[in-house]
């Protein structure tokens, strides 16, 4: 469903992505990991065109993200994205956060949008918080709202950019539980995360990046039991020993 072919990206003279090639099938869960600064976040931001690439091509369900003729706005509305810092609209209640893009982009009626919002907010277990503002919620609750907000667009795939990195440890699980539920329901997901427990549990494949390049791209089991590269071995030994 998501095809990434030989993409490269530069910030000025600095090369942040080097010849990255991978793909995500429908219903597949792919975890992207690697040391900080390795280009993981940049890679998934390229998938919905939030970051432009200078070389290579990306397509989502046959539609080219990198082509000039593509209606990016429309394409983005079909790909959900969850950010490290939630990025809920602070001046809107939880309900309005969930309804805005449904009404303005998908042109759903108010009633439709509200009932979809209520359904999803129940799914993430926050029904009683519908009228609150984001700043009145904990980090974990905010991130669950953000996930519900993306789901409200009925996306064909979801991108997660370090969804638990900004959370207190005791809130990480409530967010991961929601994500595990999504994965089990067959959502196509691309997840940048350091949560190796999550990766082991639900990922079909793990992509390991270092210095802007994809170093390993393998089945989850194979990646954890028998990483090929020294970089991946080193990385795993560092984060799994705690």
């Amino acid at each position, binding site marked *: 469903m998501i095809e990434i072919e030989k993409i490269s990206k530069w910030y000025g003279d600095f090369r942040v992505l080097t010849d990255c090639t991978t793909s995500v099938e429908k219903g597949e869960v792919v975890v992207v990991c690697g040391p900080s600064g390795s280009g993981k976040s940049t890679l998934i931001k390229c998938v919905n065109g939030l970051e432009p690439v200078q070389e290579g091509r990306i397509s989502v369900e046959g539609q080219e993200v990198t082509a000039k003729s593509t209606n990016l706005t429309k394409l983005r509305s079909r*790909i959900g*994205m969850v*950010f490290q810092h939630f990025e809920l609209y*602070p001046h809107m209640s939880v309900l309005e956060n969930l309804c*805005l893009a449904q009404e303005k982009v998908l042109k759903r009626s108010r009633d439709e949008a509200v009932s979809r919002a209520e359904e999803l907010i129940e799914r993430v277990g926050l029904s009683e918080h519908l009228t609150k*503002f984001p700043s009145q919620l904990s980090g974990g609750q905010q991130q669950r709202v953000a996930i519900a907000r993306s789901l409200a*667009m009925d996306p064909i795939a979801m991108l997660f950019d370090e969804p638990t990195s900004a959370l207190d440890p005791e809130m990480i699980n409530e967010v991961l539980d929601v994500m595990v539920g999504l994965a089990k329901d067959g959502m196509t997901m691309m997840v940048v995360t350091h949560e190796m427990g999550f990766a082991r549990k639900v990922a079909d494949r793990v992509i390991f990046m270092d210095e802007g390049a994809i170093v390993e791209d393998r089945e989850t089991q194979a990646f954890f039991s028998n990483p090929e590269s020294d970089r991946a071995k080193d990385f795993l030994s560092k984060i799994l020993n705690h």
Partner: protein
Amino acid sequence: MDYNWNWGVLFEEEYLGWLISGFWWTIAVALCAWCIAIVVGSLVGIGRTVPNRFIRAISGTYVELFRNVPLLVQMFIWYFAVPELVPDDWGRWMKRDMPNPEFTTAVIALALYTASRVAEQVRAGIETVPEGLNAAAKAHGLSVAQTYRHILLPISFRLIVPPLTSEFLTVFKNSSLALTIGLLELTAQSQQIAEYTFQGFEAFTAATVIYVCIALVATVISQSLERYTAIPGFVGKEA
């Protein structure tokens, strides 16, 4: 100091009438200029932040031009120079037939000058909105216009209520420059009272008190606006 205080002069019918009339002209000039300045300033401020480079350049030029020339000079240019620079017909109309030329000119000069300052506040407000919110709006498929309408502007206008309050007060004070092109607003009327009665202290004290009262009322209005628009837990203290 050998000075004959006579506060009563302020309450003599003729002079009191002058003060009241000056007060209303000050209010009228300031409010008209402010309304125009908010609209023009918002557009220019937004223009400075949009992706389109051409619009950004025009907006930037506007701000630099109107912000950097002294307001007094701008008043003179609008009043004395512009009628000579435009085509003859227009110039004749501006000099002969334009209704209330001092008032109109003062409003335009004050409005366009203030707009350049409002524009900078609006720009600063928009740039203060965290970049991630922009990315989130984009990621949900909102267009640039929708992002401005529903995310950037509602947040940034709340953020800039306090600095805009200062700007609002400044409009009233700056409106006193309109006396230089012959508009009989509050300062001009006080000056006139001083010239007629030689009671300059009383006359300008009256003007001072009236300006302070206007400012206090404006401040109270702005503060309640600030409370009313506050985002719970996001900007400033919770009400």
